[in-house]
């Protein structure tokens, strides 16, 4: 449900950069989103299509590069990717670790005409 305010922000940043560059139209928006954030790709595109009507970003396609969660085991210090809700280390069986990746949420680039 919070994809609406999130998408408003994505559109605002996109339009700010496009207008500064004097672009006529935004064709693509490239986002990087970690799997530990709670953003739903389809909802973001849905709201973007709705919010961007009559702006330079109307019709732009969002590309969302997903970053899988990666953690460093508290016990053995080796890195692993949690499997869904299973955060047990495959190397030593230890539970959980420090999050190294998976929390990203940024706009990497936009492609304009």
């Amino acid at each position, binding site marked *: 449900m919070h994809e609406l305010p999130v998408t408003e*922000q994505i559109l605002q*940043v996109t339009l700010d950069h496009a207008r500064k560059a004097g672009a006529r139209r935004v064709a693509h928006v490239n986002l990087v989103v970690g799997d530990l954030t709670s953003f739903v790709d389809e909802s973001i595109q849905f709201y973007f299509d709705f919010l961007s009507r009559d702006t330079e970003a109307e019709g732009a396609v969002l590309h969302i590069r997903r970053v899988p969660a990666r953690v460093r085991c508290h016990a053995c210090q080796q890195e692993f990717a*949690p499997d869904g809700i299973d955060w047990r280390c495959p190397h030593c069986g230890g539970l959980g670790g420090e999050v190294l990746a998976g929390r990203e*949420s*940024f706009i990497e680039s936009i492609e304009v005409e």
Partner: protein
Amino acid sequence: MEVVTQILSANDQIAQENRELLESRGILAVNLMASPGAGKTSLILQTAKALAGRVRVGVIEGDIASHVDADKVAAEGIPVVQINTGGTCHLDAPMVRQALKSLPLDKIDILFVENVGNLICPVEFRLGEGLRVMIASVAEGDDKPYKYPGIFTAVDAVVINKMDLAPYVEFDLAALREAIRGLNRRAEIFEVSCRTGEGLAPWADWLEKQWRTKT
């Protein structure tokens, strides 16, 4: 064209301004997050009682609708502002900035910001808080950390509430503590019952210490 801008940078900017305002007034803001019914308002009321005479408490209440919670807080003589988000599932920094204008900041030491009941969305939105605290209540079960890793990894403290219910529900305290530790080594863990008052003193003492060291 390279952009590399955090999606929520506009919110983060206002959150930073809120934080600077609060810190300049010697106020520690606590962003309190939990599921609906976990005991956010109860914890605020009980903590305010435990801190009475030591620390002055203020409250921002966030709800989708109604002012039921704000009324309960106001009835205790605590300064409170209600934010109704009108459907939005979390508080954001602009809402808090607005609410701060209606609070007597010179009469507040610790400001509780009771977020909308939700374990997902509030995590993404900084408000200007100095501490992020979540409540995990016994009745919700011991398996929540790995279902909602985002919130459990983000908080400074987890308050396990409704400990008085533990004998009556399927709940494994050791399993919950192990799961919290697995996700977050630095978080303080408190076991309390807002109904019986059990365990509230160590939590209130810790909070007071945080206020004294952070402001």
